[in-house]
Each structure stands twice: as structure tokens, then as C-alpha cells.
């Protein structure tokens, strides 16, 4: 066994000794770097080549040039590179811009030496213009004015390379949205990122989600248009005020009634109050019902003053599950009795007095005639 190893080692040494030595300079392109890895149409990027002198002597390099082909070379050639010593490396970077065509292209690098020879190297550069995808993956079944609803977007990167600086910006009028900008950052190839937006519509509108990203140094954007059509919340609490009875007590009115929830959702923090022209007075300036479950009702009582017969707004305020404050207004006709008599002492006996008086006067008149 030991003999076999010895034979093998000797054979290798013999072969190495038999190899002729490389004399003079030997230039090689040892590496290339393309940024971005995959261009989009019109993108600007860089190509960097590493050239190494693997020979045992130096060499005078004259000129380094890039020929783009379908790419435009934006930077100038290296006119006189100079001396490249044995074992030394040098890098050449060229700025190129992609044309208006997708595909794989081959810009050509030429390094000319002073002795008239040159080395050539082609670099495959890929141009693919697929954008980031924007998908609306979650939206509310209905959205109502003044209530916040959640919209979820999924941003996908179908490109063969990673993109950076990805951010989503919701744009448009007629709604309030938070956050006003969502920064994702880098998005790897064939990866997705989800973003949530809280939207509160004010009217029918269109919301544009604009996605901005960078491919290398080149900024690109894509957008998705989402209609925002507020509709009725079919499950929302429906507050109804019924059985309203107002009673005048001197200058004050006492209003009693029932507040019912005919909806399918709970109404929270229900508060009932009157508005102008009514002036709330103690003891029931407002009436706090609290939570009102679906199909439930609560009685309430309010006290107020009003200078005249009029319609009094009865405002019921409550909060939905998201904490949005909702107000409904009902009206009650209040007839302020212009006269409110409590009845004086004399008026209670007035008719008796009057009849007595009539009798007295009749007696006096008859008496005066009988005296004749």
C-alpha cells in the first residue's frame, strides 16, 4: 500500500516537472459584475470587469473599450490604461443603458495592448421588463361613509432579480387612509409582501395604490386603481327612537321614549341628547344608555326647555365595533302650551261667586222696582 502512494506522488512530480513554463504576460478576465443583475427597458447600469495578469512579466495596456450592441455605452473608453504588472489585477467599469427591447444581449469588452494584440470578452446582460405585481387580496364586503375598513395589498416580484426601495403610496380624494405611505424595502425575486391600509371613505371615489421601486439606480412604478364605493352596512346597528312622549312641566319639558337597535351589530356607548332650539336642563340633560344589543331596547328620559312650539332634534350617538362615532337624529314635535294655568284660589270658586252675584243683582233690581 505504501508503495502505491509513493508511486503516485512520484508520477505527479514528474508530470509537473515536464510542464513547460509560461513565459511573458498573460491577461485574463477573471470576473464580471453587472448592476442591476437584470435590466428593464431603458435602465441604466454598470458593467465591471476584473482583468488579471497571470503571466510572469508585466504588460503595457493601451486602451479598454466597451461595445454595447443593443446597449448604449454611456461612459468613455479607458484611453491609456498603463502598465499591468505580473500577478496584478485591474477593473474596468462601464455605464450602459438598455434599449427598448427585452432579451439577452452581449456587450463586448476589448482590451488593446501596445504590441497590437487585444483580448476580447463578451458579457451576457439580460433585459426583462416585468413589473412588480399589485394584488388586492382583501377588501371589506361593504364600506360605509365615516367608517374605517381594511384593504390588504400583496406586492409580488416576478422579476429574476431583487428590487429595492419598494414603497406603496395610496393616492386620491374623497377618503382618509392610513398609513399614507408604506415602505417595504427590498423585495427578493419571486417573493411577495403584504401591506394593510385603513380606509375611511367620505364619498364615492377612486383610490390609486402606487408602487414605487428601484431596479439598480432606476426608479420604476406601477399602480392599481381601486374604486371606493360606500354602501350601506347591512349588519350595522340601526337605532330607532319610538314612543316619544313630551310633557310640559311649567317651563320645562320632560321627554320620554324608547331607543331600539334593529340592526345586527351592537351599538356601543349609546348617548341620547337634545339639540337646539332645545336647551337641556337638569336632571336629564343627556341620557347614557350604554351598549345596546341587536333587537334590544332601552327607555330614556330627557329634560329641556324650549322657548316655543317647535321640532326638537333628538340625537342618538353610538359607536360601532371599530370605535367610529355615529349619530342619528330624530325629531319630536313639542307644543309649548302658551298658557299653563295652575288655578288660583278665586278661580276655583269663581263660578259660585258669579252665580251668587247674579242672584244678588237680580234681587236688587227686583227690589228697586218693588219700591216704586
Amino acid at each position, binding site marked *: 500500500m505504501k508503495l502505491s502512494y509513493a508511486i503516485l506522488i512520484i508520477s505527479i512530480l514528474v508530470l509537473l516537472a515536464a510542464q513547460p513554463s509560461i513565459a511573458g504576460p498573460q491577461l485574463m478576465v477573471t470576473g464580471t459584475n453587472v448592476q442591476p443583475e437584470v435590466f428593464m427597458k431603458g435602465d441604466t447600469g454598470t458593467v465591471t470587469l476584473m482583468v488579471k495578469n497571470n503571466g510572469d512579466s508585466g504588460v503595457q495596456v493601451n486602451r479598454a473599450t466597451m461595445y454595447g450592441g443593443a446597449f448604449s455605452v454611456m461612459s468613455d473608453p479607458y484611453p491609456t490604461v498603463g502598465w499591468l504588472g505580473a500577478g496584478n489585477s485591474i477593473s474596468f467599469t462601464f455605464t450602459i443603458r438598455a434599449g427598448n427591447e427585452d432579451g439577452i444581449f452581449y456587450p463586448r469588452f476589448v482590451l488593446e495592448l501596445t504590441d497590437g494584440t487585444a483580448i476580447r470578452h463578451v458579457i451576457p446582460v439580460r433585459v426583462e421588463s416585468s413589473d412588480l405585481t399589485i394584488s388586492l387580496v382583501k377588501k371589506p364586503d361593504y364600506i360605509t361613509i365615516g367608517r374605517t375598513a381594511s384593504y390588504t395589498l400583496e406586492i409580488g416580484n416576478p422579476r429574476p432579480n431583487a428590487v429595492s426601495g419598494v414603497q406603496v403610496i395610496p393616492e386620491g380624494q374623497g377618503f382618509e387612509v392610513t398609513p399614507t405611505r408604506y415602505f417595504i424595502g427590498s423585495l427578493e425575486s419571486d417573493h411577495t409582501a403584504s401591506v394593510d391600509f385603513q380606509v375611511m371613505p367620505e364619498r364615492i371615489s377612486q383610490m390609486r395604490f402606487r408602487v414605487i421601486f428601484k431596479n439598480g439606480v432606476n426608479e420604476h412604478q406601477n399602480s392599481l386603481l381601486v374604486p371606493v364605493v360606500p354602501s350601506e352596512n347591512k349588519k350595522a346597528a340601526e337605532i330607532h327612537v319610538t314612543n316619544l312622549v313630551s310633557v310640559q312641566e311649567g317651563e320645562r319639558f320632560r321627554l320620554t321614549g324608547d331607543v331600539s337597535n334593529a340592526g345586527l351589530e351592537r351599538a356601543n356607548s349609546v348617548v341620547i341628547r337634545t339639540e337646539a332650539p332645545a336647551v337641556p336642563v337638569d336632571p336629564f340633560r343627556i341620557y347614557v344608555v350604554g351598549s345596546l344589543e341587536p333587537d334590544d331596547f332601552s327607555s330614556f328620559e330627557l329634560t329641556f326647555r324650549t322657548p*316655543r312650539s317647535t321640532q326638537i332634534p333628538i340625537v342618538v350617538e353610538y359607536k360601532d365595533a371599530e370605535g367610529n362615532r355615529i349619530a342619528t337624529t330624530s325629531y319630536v314635535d313639542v307644543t309649548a302650551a*302658551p*298658557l299653563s294655568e295652575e288655578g288660583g284660589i*278665586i278661580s276655583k270658586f269663581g263660578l259660585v261667586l258669579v252665580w251668587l252675584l247674579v242672584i244678588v*243683582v237680580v234681587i236688587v233690581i227686583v227690589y228697586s222696582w218693588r*219700591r216704586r
Partner: protein
Amino acid sequence: MSHSLVQLLLDPERFFQERAEESRGLLFPAAIVLAIAIIGSISAYFMLGLTLLLMPSSSQGMADLIVAIGMVSSIAGAFIGWVVVTAVIYGISALLGGKGAFRGLLENIGWGYFPQLFGSLLSLIFMYDFVSSTSVSPVEDPMLVAEAMTRFMSHPSMLSIQVISVVFMLWSANIWIFGTKSARGLKMKNAVISVLLPIGLYLLYMIYVLIGYLGVF
């Protein structure tokens, strides 16, 4: 004087017979009418004060002026009424052969107002009782103002005042008959016609209004 006033109320024929023999003067009759006028103006003050409370606050700036005009009108109206009643009775009695002077009739009619002094005082008491026990809220709708006024006038206290007015007017009319007979030298029958024709029509009108407030019509 107090004896004479009792005689005026209970035996007006003798009262005027005795007055015919004395010197005539308008001082006491005018004082009676003035007293009635002052009491009436106080009632008007209460009445207008309550009515004005029905008006919107924007109209309250004129309240003092309206009340002042109302009180002055009430006083002036009493004297004008005295003269008008006398003139009407004078005219009718003249058609029936009346001879006496207008001034004499005016004096006797003025004396005849005396029962209404009690009526005015009673009305004032009823009015005060009603006003002090009633609270009024301003209204802007004219329909509600009209409705409030109807309720106002159909209140038992106000109806009582109306009845008192009618009753004491009857009492006055009774005295006026004897006063007219004395002042105009008429037969009793003609004196009754002279007084009861206008006063009767007036009383019928008042009764009609009173029944209207009671909701019969």
C-alpha cells in the same frame, strides 16, 4: 253721601227724584267713571302684560309702549263710553218724547255707572288671580297666538269676568232707566225702551261672545 249711594243702588227712582231737586253737578258721576276707568286700566295692564308674553322676544321691546297705550286707551275709553251711551239714550229718548237736557242725562247716566265700580273691582280681583296663576310661553306661529288667546278668553276666570261685566251692566241699565226717566221726563215705558234697546243689544252681543268662548258655536 253713603246713604245716598245705597239709595242709588236699591231705590234709584227716589234717588234721582231727590237729585232733581238739588243743584246738578258732574263731579261725582265723573269721579265714579274715573274710578272705574282706573280700575279698568289696571285690569288692562294685567291683561296686556300676559298677552305680550305670548309674543316672540323680538317683539318685547315695544311691550312698555303697548301697555302704556292700552292703559291710557282704557281710561279714555271709559269717558268716551259714558258720553256715547248717554248720546244714544238721549237720541232714542228724544224720539220717544224726551225733553230734558243732555247734561242732566249725562249726570244720571254717570251715577248709573256706580254698580260697575264693584264689578270692576271684582273683575280686577279675578284678573289678578288668573294672571298670577298662569305662566305664558312665547309663541311665534300666529295660529298658536290665536289659539292661546282663545284659551285665554275661555278660561273660567275670564268667563267669570265676562259674566260679572254683563251682570253689573244690567244693574247699571236698571239705574239708567230711572235716571233717563228723571232726566228726560219720560214715562217709565219709554224710559225702559230708551235704555234697554241699546243696552239690550249690547248685552246680547256680549252674551253671544261669552257663549262663543264656551264653545257652543
